[in-house]
C-alpha cells in the first residue's frame, strides 16, 4: 500500500499534481473519515426513508381520513420545498427550541447533533417521495391478481404479505432506486450545517493544501463512482427480482 501512496508523492514532485489525500497520512485519514460519514449518512437516511415510505403508504391505504390527510400534508410539504431550507429550518430553528442535555462536567450540548439532524431531514425528504412511490406501486398491482388471491382464501394480512407487496416492490423498484440514488447525492447538503462528510472534509483539505482543482476532481470522481456503483447494484437487483410479464412504473416497460 505504501508504494501506492508514494506514487502520489512522486506525482506531486514530478508533475505538480498535488493530492495530499493520498500521500499525506493526516489528510488521508480526514478524507476517508469523511467518506465513511457520507456512507453512514446515506445508509441511515435510505433505511429510515424507506421505513417512512412504507408506513406512509400503509396509512394512505387505511380507512382513517385523518391519517390520510396528515400523510398527504406531509408529502406535499416536503416534496415542494427546498431540502436545504428544510435542513436549516430543522437544525437552526427547531433544534433551537429543543431542550439541551446537561453534560457531566457542566455546560450543555444540543439534544441532536448536526449528523442526527441531517439524517432526520434527509429521511423526511426522501420519505415523502417514497410514500408516493410505494402507493403507486401498490395501486399498480392488477386487481385480477388480488381477486384471485382473495378467491383462494387469503386474508388481508397474508394477501399483502405474499401477493401485493412482493409485486408492488418489483413494480416500483425503478422509481425507488432513482429516489434513493438522489438521496445519496442530497447528503452533500449536510455540508451546510458543518457535518464532516465528504464534501466538508474536502473543502478543508483544499483550503489547507491550496489544491482546489485537484481536490474538486477527486471529489467529483469519488461521488460519481459511489453513485454509479449504487445505481449499478440497484439495477442488478431489479434484474434479479424481475418477474416475466410484470410491467413497471416509472421505468422501462
Amino acid at each position, binding site marked *: 500500500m505504501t508504494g501506492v501512496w508514494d506514487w502520489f508523492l512522486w506525482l506531486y514532485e514530478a508533475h505538480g499534481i498535488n493530492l495530499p489525500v493520498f500521500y499525506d497520512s493526516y489528510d488521508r485519514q480526514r478524507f476517508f473519515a469523511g467518506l465513511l460519514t457520507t456512507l453512514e449518512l446515506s445508509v441511515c437516511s435510505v433505511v429510515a426513508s424507506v421505513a417512512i415510505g412504507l408506513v406512509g403508504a400503509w396509512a394512505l391505504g387505511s380507512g382513517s381520513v385523518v391519517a390520510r390527510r396528515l400523510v398527504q400534508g406531509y408529502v*406535499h*410539504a416536503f*416534496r*415542494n*420545498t*427546498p*431540502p*436545504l*431550507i*428544510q435542513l*436549516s*429550518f430543522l437544525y*437552526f*430553528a*427547531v433544534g*433551537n*427550541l429543543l431542550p439541551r442535555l446537561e453534560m457531566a462536567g457542566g455546560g450543555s450540548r444540543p439534544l441532536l447533533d448536526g449528523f442526527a439532524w441531517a439524517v432526520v431531514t434527509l429521511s423526511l425528504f426522501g420519505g415523502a417521495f417514497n410514500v408516493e412511490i410505494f402507493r403507486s406501486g401498490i395501486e399498480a398491482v392488477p386487481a385480477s391478481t388480488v381477486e384471485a388471491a382473495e378467491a383462494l382464501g387469503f386474508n388481508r394480512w397474508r394477501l399483502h404479505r405474499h401477493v401485493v407487496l412482493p409485486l408492488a416492490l418489483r413494480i416500483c423498484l425503478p422509481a425507488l432506486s432513482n429516489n434513493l*440514488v438522489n438521496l445519496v*447525492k*442530497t*447528503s*452533500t*447538503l449536510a*455540508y*451546510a450545517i458543518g457535518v464532516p462528510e465528504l*464534501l466538508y472534509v474536502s*473543502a478543508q483539505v483544499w483550503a489547507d493544501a491550496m489544491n*482546489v*482543482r485537484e481536490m*474538486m476532481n477527486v*471529489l*467529483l470522481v469519488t*461521488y*460519481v463512482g459511489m*453513485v*454509479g456503483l449504487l*445505481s449499478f447494484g440497484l439495477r442488478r437487483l431489479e434484474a434479479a427480482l424481475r418477474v416475466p410479464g410484470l*410491467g413497471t412504473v416509472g421505468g422501462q416497460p
Partner: protein
Amino acid sequence: MIAGDGDAVGVLATIWKWAPLIGRGFLLNILISVLAMAMGTVAGLALGLGQIAPYAVLRRPAQIVTQFFRNAPWLVLLFYCILLLPYQMTVGDWTVPMPAWIKATIGLALPVMGNVSEIVRGGIQALPQAQWDSAESLAFSRRQTLWMVILPQAIKPMLPPWMNLYAVLIMATPLASIVGVEEAMTLTRFALSAENRSELLLPMYLALLVAFFAYCYPIARWTARLERRFAVKH
C-alpha cells in the same frame, strides 16, 4: 413556548419589514432557475439526440457524459463551477465579467443537461419502432424523420418529467447561498443575523419555506395533471 399577541405582531412586522429584500432575492432564484433550465435544456437536447445517434463514436461519449452529470451531486457541480470558472471571460476583444450568480447558473445547468438528455432519450425510445420504419418507407431522411415525425410526437410525453426537473431545479437554487450568491436564502440568513433574535428563526425560515411552496406546488399539480392526461392506457 406560546408567544403573546404583542410578540406575534412584532414577529409579523419584522417579517414584513424584510419581505421586499428577501422577495428580490427570490426573484434571483427564479431568474437563475429559468436561465439554468434554458441552458440545460438546449445542451441536454443535443446530448440526448447524441445518445440515440446511429454512430457509436457519437453515442458512447454522449452516454458517458449523461451518466456523469446525472450521478454527480448538484452541490459538488456547483462548487466546481464557482471555484474553477474564471472571474471573467475574454471572447475576442470582449471581456465578459462572470459574477458568482452566473457561475452558479452554469453549475446548476450541468445536472439539468444530464437529466434532460435522459428525458429526451427515454421519450424518443418510448415511441413505437413503426414510426421510424414508416417514415423511412416514405423516403424521409434520418434528420427529417427526427424533426418532422419523431420529435413532434415525443415532446408531449417529455413535458411532465421536464417540468418535474424544473421543480427540482428551483428547489436546488438555495444551494447557491452556500457559495455566496445573494439569493433568498442568503438574504434570510442576513436578516436573521441583523435582527439577532432567536424567536425569529422559526417564523423566518417558515416564511421562506412557504414562499417556495407557493411557487412549486402549482407546478407540481399542473405536472400531475399533464401526467394523467398523457398516460398511456394499457
